[in-house]
């Protein structure tokens, strides 16, 4: 018995794969928006320490020690910077080769205590599982 798979079938599969990649990319973007929006900002060290890590990469990690407080307007700038950091990470992801884990991580030394007080990971889990 012989099956012939024509080119249009392959084209449809390619389109489907692209759609899934776009959906994945949009979800990562939504997670980045929420994570940076609900993060507290004092010096900006925490909110700019988020990373998307593929496999066993090393996360960004900034200490707040010695950094000046940024104030309300500076807080928005820091959140935008944190978001842009994550979008840079997303742009580098090769979705076709992505086989292992993809993790949202925060490598700031004080990330544990910030998360204890603001439960950012819990809110992200509730929204995105």
């Amino acid at each position, binding site marked *: 018995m012989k099956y012939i798979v024509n080119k249009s079938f392959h084209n449809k599969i390619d389109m489907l794969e692209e759609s899934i990649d776009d959906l994945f990319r949009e979800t990562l973007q939504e997670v980045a928006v929420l994570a940076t929006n609900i993060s507290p900002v004092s010096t900006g060290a925490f909110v700019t320490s988020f990373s998307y890590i593929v496999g066993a990469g090393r996360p960004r990690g900034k200490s707040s020690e010695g950094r000046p407080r940024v104030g309300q307007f500076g807080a928005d700038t820091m959140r935008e910077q944190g978001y842009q950091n994550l979008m840079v990470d997303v742009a580098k992801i090769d979705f076709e080769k992505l086989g292992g884990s993809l993790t949202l991580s925060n490598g700031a030394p004080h990330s*544990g205590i910030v998360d*204890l007080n603001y*439960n950012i990971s*819990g*809110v992200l*889990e*509730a929204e995105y599982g």
Partner: protein
Amino acid sequence: MASIHNDIRAALETHISNTANLPSIAYENVAFEPTTGTSFIQVRYMPTSTRPAVRGLNPQLRYQGVFYVIVSTPEGNGPSIADDYANKVINAFQATTDISFTNSQSQTIKVSIDYAERQQGLIDSPWYHVPINIGWYIYNN
């Protein structure tokens, strides 16, 4: 007229306050001075979304969020006391538990528990904290 959030919060807080053998509970925006060496629990109501459950006019809404519980025990005594309290909280809020609450207008709501998960312990002197996330949801008009 009270928001449904008042009733959801009341349902969750009443449920944990009725759970046996837990230490004192620090509620949100209520004065509470922890005594060093004495365990306590903090609770926080964190709604995360209110979305239409179906299409069409006047749809039923799905409310969901997290009831965040932090078990705090004295630092340096090992994890067993905190683990014991955390287990009691998780048992009281097991996934698929439905919590009923009747408000002062005799309206009864039922809050459903989606999950109850603990995270790793963390020392913030003089306390050892164990955070627990309790995911909840409710459908309501």
